[in-house]
């Protein structure tokens, strides 16, 4: 893989720690997280609920200040930028814009002609299977539909980096697989750098080059799995293969370990 041998990583997370002010004592969400992601790499983060995954994504997005550094293309970031496209866990669609206008929102700054923008939007509406819903407002969509619009909106801007916070979390199992395959296709075609958060171990193994397992709060990277599967073979074959299941089981056990640890920690409180 060309990407993995690239000398400067696309994203470098260096010693990132983050505390939220709490009622009595501050809540530490992240402790000294180091991740380095090469250009074109697809990295997933899995971990127990509330361990700080979203927080990490917000820091990389440049929305939250934290201790430590985040570098993109070797430069420290100081806020959000259009180089990093974000899909939020809560979708973050603009409720006052229709599906089409939400997708068009980010395109307006790209300097494209309006008919070109419309073409991109129409194509993406087709990809996410929402033809006929272009003029609906977010409140008229189901959770899964909103999530698909949020993904389309981010893909429309064609950012070099994708930051995805449980992008398929609200989808039903069938749509989820279709959308995963679509993301995989886009990634294979464009080799974007992807940082994805998910709870679904199968999804992580199916899509990523690397999986980082986070501990319960304060979140730290406790395990890392490199995945070298051939992405070109069809889903049925890949998912049922021994190689796939072996690595899937390993990741699953590691995550379960952390979840159990989180539970005993909670019970102790």
């Amino acid at each position, binding site marked *: 893989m060309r990407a993995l041998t690239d000398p400067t990583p696309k994203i470098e997370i260096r010693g990132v720690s983050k505390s939220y002010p709490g009622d009595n004592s501050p809540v530490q969400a992240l402790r000294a997280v180091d991740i380095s992601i090469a250009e074109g790499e697809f990295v997933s983060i899995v971990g127990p609920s509330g361990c700080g995954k979203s927080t990490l994504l917000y820091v990389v997005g440049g*929305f939250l200040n934290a201790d430590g550094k985040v570098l993109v293309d070797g430069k420290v970031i100081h806020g959000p*930028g259009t180089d*990093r496209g974000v899909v939020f866990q809560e979708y973050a669609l603009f409720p*006052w814009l229709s599906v089409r206008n939400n997708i068009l*929102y*980010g395109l307006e*700054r790209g300097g494209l002609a309006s008919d070109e923008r419309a073409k991109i939007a129409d194509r993406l509406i087709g990809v996410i299977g929402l033809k006929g*819903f272009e003029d609906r407002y977010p409140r008229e969509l*189901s959770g899964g539909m909103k999530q698909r619009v949020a993904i389309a909106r981010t893909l429309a801007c064609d950012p070099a980096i994708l930051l995805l916070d449980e992008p398929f979390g609200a989808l039903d199992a069938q749509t989820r697989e279709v959308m995963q395959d679509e993301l995989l296709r886009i990634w294979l075609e464009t080799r974007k750098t992807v940082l994805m958060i998910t709870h679904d171990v199968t999804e992580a193994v199916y899509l990523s080059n690397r999986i980082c397992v986070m501990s319960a709060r304060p979140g730290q990277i406790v395990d890392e799995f490199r995945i070298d599967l051939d992405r070109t073979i069809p889903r049925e074959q890949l998912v049922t293969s021994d190689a796939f299941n072996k690595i899937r089981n390993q990741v699953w056990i590691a995550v379960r370990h952390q979840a159990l640890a989180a539970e005993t920690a909670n019970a102790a409180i």
Partner: protein
Amino acid sequence: MQRSDRHSYLWSPIGRIIPLVVVGLIWQAAGTFRLVDPSFLPSPVRVAYAIADLLTGREIRDNLLVTLSRAAIGLALGSMAGVWLGLMMARSEVFRAYAAPIVGGTYSLPKSALIPLFILWFGIGTVTTVCAVFLACLLPMVVNTFQGVRSTPRVLIWGAEAFGTPPKGMLWRVFLPHALPDIFAGLRVALGFSFVLAISSEMVASTNGIGKLIFMYGENGAYDYMFAAIACVVVVAFLADRLLLIATDKCLRWHESSARRELA
């Protein structure tokens, strides 16, 4: 308001007039059968005659127009200033710190208390009324705009930033749209206030306007005309409120409060 299929005719526009007609009939019966002294409660028929008479003359139209223009000027100025102040307070901590005690203090002041003060300052007439309406409309707009902007979810702000919206664009593209439902809610409150304050202040500090007219009819013992003028006020206030609601619904089709359309 859900309606059942069984009684849908009751909820039709005509069905909804029935209760009002019933009220009118009881009122008429009370007079006809001498249950109340008709000099204290003119019958609906007499009030209807008075309304017809008023509508053909200029008196009610001219005075109503005077009142409405005072209310409209105060409402327009008050709500524009209110939205601006609310935005400033929401976006600037320092501005908020200075403005908060003034807004908080005057918000709970019964606004009509200032009418005597305005009479001292501006004398009797339009300026006093417009000032009273202005102040009464200003505060709900400030508070609602402020709350609407402040309650913008952080992910919406972040989302807009991630798509490269410049800080100047955030106001028009994120904060104002998000505050719009609250602004409209404030506008409805302000509209109500504008009528109350215009009429109150005309009753004590004006030589014309519908408030003064109602009071004069009362003092002259023309009770059927007094009832007729009040009925006109009720209808005009109702229509203004409805118009605002329709406009709100048009502008807020995206919002939860707008009638829920079925999923295809």
